[in-house]
């Protein structure tokens, strides 16, 4: 790694001012897992790292909080994945989030990695991460995955670049309708987490809509509707220590046997956490059953345009959605 200085601001204002002066050269450091990886691979060479853990107890309180609200949950951006996975008393409705937080990366990484950093980490596309290649995202003229090695790339929402969003926490948080609070030049603003993510068509240099120097403060999960259940399903090549090939997080509100609401979010198949709206619409108002799930699961890939090597993700995603629906609604999978 090229030498850099570690700056330890104790106030939010100082942290932001320092970053804003030279945003590219002065990233915030949270868990440092993605940042140090990029620096070691020579993809980033910051002059300074701005240490978010240095914030004083009061200034950093919101970013460190992991607390119940009225029926819901506040998760500070600096909460570690491990702390989230271990948290006692998470409402059972938020199971998808707990499952995802305890499945992402590895145990030692989860101790350091933070919720904010997880949502803002860079994609794992091997062309983007290659120190000697230039793809669309690293300043080149074309997406090298489109006609290259693309078995791990996007089947939905791709183009002109085909990355998949790398965050395992994104899908469950969107499925649970999380909002995110951001501190920027105009003060604080809160938006649906879904709106944080930017597809490549909109923005090629980053995967989010934060402006330079903006800080992600915290996420808030609203109180779950009565009867809300959520689950997370993932397929990996190896059971442990591997990136997802595809994942789904979904929440359903079940009243008696009838599905009153659904949010179905796919991960690792699109450049952003992908709402499977056709599945959601086909579920609402229907009675939960194996037949229903078999009928709606194929809708998960509506609009899919697989590349040469990733057609398998279509069937995989449909299968994950079906399995997740069975588990969430407690409907046995037929033999």
């Amino acid at each position, binding site marked *: *790694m*090229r*030498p*850099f*200085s*570690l700056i330890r601001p104790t106030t939010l204002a100082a942290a932001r001012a320092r970053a804003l002066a030279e945003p590219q050269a002065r990233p915030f*450091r949270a868990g*440092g*897992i993605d940042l*140090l*990886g990029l620096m*070691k*691979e020579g993809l980033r060479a910051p*002059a300074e*790292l701005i*240490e978010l*853990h240095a914030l004083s107890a009061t200034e950093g309180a919101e970013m460190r909080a992991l607390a119940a609200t009225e029926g819901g949950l506040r998760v500070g951006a600096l909460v570690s994945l*491990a702390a989230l996975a271990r948290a006692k008393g998470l409402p059972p409705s938020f199971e998808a989030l707990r499952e995802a937080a305890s499945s992402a*990366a*590895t*145990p*030692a*990484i989860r*101790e*350091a990695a933070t919720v904010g950093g997880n949502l803002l980490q860079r994609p794992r596309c091997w062309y983007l991460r290659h120190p000697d290649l230039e793809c669309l995202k690293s300043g080149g003229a074309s997406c090298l995955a489109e006609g290259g090695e693309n078995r791990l790339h996007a089947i939905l929402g791709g183009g002109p670049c085909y990355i998949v969003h790398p965050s395992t926490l994104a899908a469950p948080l969107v499925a649970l309708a999380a909002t995110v609070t951001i501190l920027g030049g105009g003060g604080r603003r809160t938006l649906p987490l879904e709106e944080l993510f930017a597809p490549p068509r909109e923005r090629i240099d980053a995967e989010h809509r934060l402006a330079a120097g903006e800080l992600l403060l915290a996420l808030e999960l609203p109180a779950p509707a009565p009867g809300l259940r959520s689950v997370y399903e993932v397929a990996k090549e190896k059971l*442990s*220590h591997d990136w997802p090939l595809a994942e789904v997080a979904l929440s359903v509100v079940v009243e008696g046997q009838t599905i009153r609401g659904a949010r179905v979010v796919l991960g690792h198949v699109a450049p952003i956490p992908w709402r499977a709206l056709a599945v959601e619409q086909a579920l609402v108002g229907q009675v939960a059953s194996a037949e229903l799930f078999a009928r709606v699961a194929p809708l998960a890939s509506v609009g899919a345009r697989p590349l040469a090597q990733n057609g398998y993700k279509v069937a995989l995603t449909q299968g994950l959605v079906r399995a997740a629906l069975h588990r969430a609604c407690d409907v046995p999978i037929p033999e």
Partner: protein
Amino acid sequence: MSQSSAILLSLTLNGEPVQVAAPAHWTLLEVLRYKLDLIGSKQGCDKGDCGACTVQIDGLPALACLTLAALADGRSVTTVEALGCGPVVHPLLDAFDRHDAAQCGFCTPGILMAAESLLRRSARPVTRHEAASALAGNLCRCTGYTKILDAVVDASERLRAEHDDGR
């Protein structure tokens, strides 16, 4: 290119207070291996993929290769060297020996530190599944993991028995 300044770190290392100066941008792994000569923690991939550098910070597993040394200041760092220092052979080392759980041994220090953190935090003997989950970030190219899991489960049963005997 500016040279980054040196920093002075004060940490508790394997139970002893230690002060060490190092370049500000060094990782904990570099300080352990190249300043303190503690070469038990291995430098494998050096970017989070293999777990060979696993140490403990305040008792929890941490990847020394992705931890800035500056951030270990004031913390308690435990490396595999600590396991070899007691008056009796540590049950994990003994179990790894009896089960032939190390071959080339490159992964072993990281695995021992991940396993020790699990066993210390577990109120009862761990299951195979728990051991495998705790070691999910530690790659081994030699053993096929079976003997490693045998050893960890065996050690956890012994530790519990010793604990119950009040030893």
